[in-house]
């Protein structure tokens, strides 16, 4: 017997889709902002000797990416690529990855800060409502879940017939959502705030715990990369675990249970 269960509350679904759009805009406008100073230093002030990443164009038609002192030719993608106006030019991230496509720091900042509010409010409303309703407690990874992480991974890798017993969320889901929603998302917000001189003036410790302004810029970028990694795994899971059913449940709330499947997501 298959039956429909109401899996996601309206607020959760709204927060998910507002968050998804906001994150897409934040990444593309963030790359636009990065392009204005396409390097990251592990220091407070700009310090070339502590440069972790730089993307530049040493000569016309050549793009170069340097990570921890190791240079790679990345022509056509990083350093030299689409200028967003139909041509090519020296650009850290290419036009097809940035908002707007052409180089415009002022507009990139407008997009980034506008959608930072949307992402933050979506995150906060989800956090408060799921904490109040008690769903948050089911989702948080606990020490008692740790020994179930590998059995769950083994099940996904088809090394094990059955998943370990778990509640609404399996141990890997708990680990992923706890890390992304309760650790990574707030860290990305805080490292972003730490970049602002006005915020730094009222909260020196915020900037300094991340190692200073340039270091905060590096953490903000690394946080983005980790988030992109999560999104890739997340989309893969949705594609492979019954795409239409998953999409319906995040749009209408209703999920069709498969045989032997527990009620939770």
């Amino acid at each position, binding site marked *: 017997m298959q039956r429909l269960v109401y899996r996601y509350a309206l607020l959760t679904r709204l927060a998910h889709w507002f968050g998804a759009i906001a994150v897409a805009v934040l990444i593309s*406008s963030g790359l636009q902002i990065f392009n204005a100073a396409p390097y990251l230093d592990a220091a*407070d002030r*700009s310090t070339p000797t502590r440069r972790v990443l730089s993307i530049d164009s040493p000569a016309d038609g050549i793009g170069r990416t340097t990570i921890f002192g190791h240079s790679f030719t990345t022509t056509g993608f990083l350093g030299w690529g689409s200028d967003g106006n139909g041509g090519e030019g020296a650009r850290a991230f290419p036009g097809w990855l940035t908002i707007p496509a052409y180089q415009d*720091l002022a507009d990139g900042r407008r997009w980034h800060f506008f959608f930072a509010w949307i992402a933050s409010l979506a995150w906060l409303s989800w956090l408060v409502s799921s904490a109040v309703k008690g769903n948050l407690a089911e989702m948080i990874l606990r020490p008692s879940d740790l020994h179930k992480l590998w059995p769950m991974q083994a099940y996904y890798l088809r090394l094990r017939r059955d998943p370990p017993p778990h509640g609404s969320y399996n141990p890997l889901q708990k680990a992923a959502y706890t890390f992304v929603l309760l650790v990574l998302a707030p860290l990305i917000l805080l490292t972003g705030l730490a*970049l602002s*001189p006005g915020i*730094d*003036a009222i909260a020196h410790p915020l900037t300094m715990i991340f190692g200073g302004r340039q270091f905060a810029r590096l953490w903000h970028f690394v946080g983005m990369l980790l988030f992109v990694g999560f999104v890739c795994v997340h989309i893969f899971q949705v594609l492979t675990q019954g795409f239409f059913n998953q999409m319906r449940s995040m749009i209408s709330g209703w999920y069709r249970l498969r045989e032997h499947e527990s009620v939770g997501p």
Partner: protein
Amino acid sequence: MKRRLFLASSIAAALAGCSPIGTALNDNAGFHHALGLEGSLDAALMENLPGLAREYSIADISKNFPVDSLPTPTSVTYDRLLAHDFQSYTLAVVGAVERPLSLSLAQLQRMPQQTQITRHDCVEGWSAIGAWTGVPLRRILQFARPHRDARYAIFRCMDRDDQGTPYYESLDMAQAYQAQTLLALRLNGEAIRPDHGAPVRLRVPTQLGYKSAKWVREIQIVGSFAHLYGGKGGYWEDQGYEWYAGI
């Protein structure tokens, strides 16, 4: 498998669509204006918070302070000032003040000096630390005595872009009276170099670098900046950057 391929390619298309859709919206005047409203929200939340920029030690000073602005003025007037070590330079304080001032460089140098080692945060993303010495702006305003209805200090500068448009900036009175807002005469113990804004540049360490105007020649106290140039209160503001530059 075909279905998965179709789904994967639609998601790839959706991701690749992000930039063109965003760019099209960016070029839409109404949407672009709506995006800008967020800047007013930030300004309302932030601009009157107390807070002082962090002060550093001598060991933290950047070895090479970047020069990243409009080019050093090349006008006959500036060349003449430079050739005579700015002896004939005057800083004018005009507009809605009880006592308009005209201060020579020597007079500015004789006023009590403040040194701050602060970080300059460029809107592009880089930062540099320098030791700035000069006259706190509030001391000059205390001499000039702005009218009660004065709202902004406009800084008119000697540099121009390649279209001939002069650089200018503005601060509201609270920002102008802030303890660290400085008319800097020296950087790292030496007279400011021409490319760093000689002889007098503004330092506003609680905001992004474009507020810290170089080559200041006149401070005008006004009730509104809507009639000046693009009407947004600054050279970069007229090109879309936020007037409140603390974010």
